[in-house]
């Protein structure tokens, strides 16, 4: 009982002091007041679900669905080849296939196979931004399928490997260890 009374007293004091600070806060103190503006509102589950489209390397965010390279071949030809070429190598936009072993050469070829460190990123990006004229138009099955086709063409998975929320995060990309933190400033002073 005594503790409860003390608690009520403390809460009351805090409230009074807090109100005092708010009341005394002129323009100079304005920046100090960083909590409790009462702006905005709680987001609904639906609002979060519709926009929460990112996929982390852990696989968090991957939806239900599945696909294989075989299923992805026709989709790539129909929806992707115009920009990336019939085999994903010809362009005119980003080359997606090949380039293994070229990163340390004079003319590195950075592709999904030679450069990208995470297979999950491929799902995230294809879903959020591709195909270029109609982003976010592919179904989860279609995204899994075209991702499977790209990984198969790069020699990373078999043609019949089924990609889904469980298998995709486990795929080991060849350049997974190829990225280092920023060491700058790195140029010796003259």
């Amino acid at each position: 009982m005594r503790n409860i009374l003390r608690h009520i007293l403390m809460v009351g004091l805090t409230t009074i002091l807090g109100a005092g600070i708010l009341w005394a806060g002129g323009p100079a103190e304005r920046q100090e007041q960083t909590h409790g503006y009462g702006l905005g509102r709680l987001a609904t589950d639906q609002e979060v679900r519709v926009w929460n489209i990112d996929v982390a390397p852990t696989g968090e965010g991957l939806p239900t669905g599945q696909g294989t390279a075989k299923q992805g071949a026709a989709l790539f030809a129909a929806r992707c080849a115009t920009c990336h070429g019939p085999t994903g190598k010809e362009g005119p936009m980003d080359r997606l296939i090949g380039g293994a072993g070229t990163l340390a050469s004079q003319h590195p070829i950075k592709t999904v196979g030679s450069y990208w460190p995470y297979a999950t990123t491929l799902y995230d990006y294809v879903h959020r931004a591709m195909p270029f004229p109609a982003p976010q138009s592919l179904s989860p099955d279609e995204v899994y399928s075209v991702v499977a086709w790209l990984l198969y063409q790069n020699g990373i998975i078999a043609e019949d490997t089924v990609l889904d929320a469980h298998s995709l995060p486990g795929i080991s990309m060849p350049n997974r260890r190829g990225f280092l933190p920023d060491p700058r400033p790195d140029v010796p002073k003259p």
Partner: protein
Amino acid sequence: MTKHLQEEGPSGGDGRPDAEDESLLNRRSLLAGTAGLVSAMLMGSMTPAAEAATENSPEDPTRVPGATPTAYGQRSAFEKAVRIPRSWWSSLTPLQDSHGILTPSSLHFERHHNGVPTIHPTQHRLLIHGMVDQPWTFAMEDLKRFPSVSRLAFIECSGNSAAEWRGPTGQTAQQTHGLTSTSEWTGVALKTVLQEVGMNPEASWMLAEGGDAAAMTRSLPLASILEEAILCYAQNGEPLRPEQGYPLRLLIPGWEGNTCIKWLRRLKLGKAPFMTREETSQYTDLMPDGTARQFTMVMEAKSVITSPSGGQHIQPGFLEIRGLAWSGRGRIASVEVSTDGGRSWRQAALQEPILPKCHTRFHLSWRWNGEDVILQSRCLDDTGYRQPDRTALVAVRGVNSVYHYNAIQSWHIAADGKVSNVHA
């Protein structure tokens, strides 16, 4: 002094005449009634040569009433500096035509990844979720009610000057360095908004996502950005331009432009980077050994002489060497200029204001005697970092890292006064 300089070439700032400006001017003249009539009569009496030289201006403006007030101002119809739309995804600021340190909003460089979206401000929302007390959403009117902050800051695309890695490519300062601009940015501090929603102290990374057709997304380390990041709704005193993120963008002063997510619609707090395409396959710097640097956010100190600069023609005699310097780490401490290809250096004057993470104007009086010379500038920031020469930069990074080229720029002045881009 500027009379010494003549622009030439398609990229020298002599863009196409602004047909819209001219038609507006004509319409205003007509609307001005009698004044318009007098104006038209005066113009009719002008010789064809004079008319061509002065476009729609009267021979003697002191004898003709001028134009009436307008709802939204336009620059003089005689001024032609324009951005160069380099492709569907970027346009370049005409640095060689700029004065002071501010970039007019209309000339701020553009970089977008699937076009400029049209967003209705009353429909736009900012969603904040992940490691916060509760998922929260703000309308633009909510964000504008928070205590506001303003600052001047440059934004530079980390791909600025990327074509220069392999050799002198751009003809003009606009083409070599035009992916940087400075504005006054106004909004609410990121910290204020995150405290409002109750940030989990364990959160260390923040995903920022745009509402464009690329849903552009970057992961940002919270501890590094919390003190300076601004959720901006205004630029140079008015709402953001559509191509700069209307109605809401992130500003992280001094960091590569891509981190300043435009059309900002979502912030998600977490414990690890989200490893989006834009921080793995893009915006990573490939080194000669085949490894790549990741999360290279800071734009290191850089400078460029904007006058005289590539594509211009100078004449012997006095001129003022002018340029811009900036550093993503802080203030510009000094700028030195060489007129002999880097053998000797002289201190340039820095023009106030000298602000952190902001374009800084420098100048140096000079007399060109008609000899073949190479002009260079190099800057030092207040962390002691000195802008490197090209040889030193390439020795460390090779030529395949695409991003973050900040080497000393060399402009060659030939005996005939023609200025061109060289690597010296």
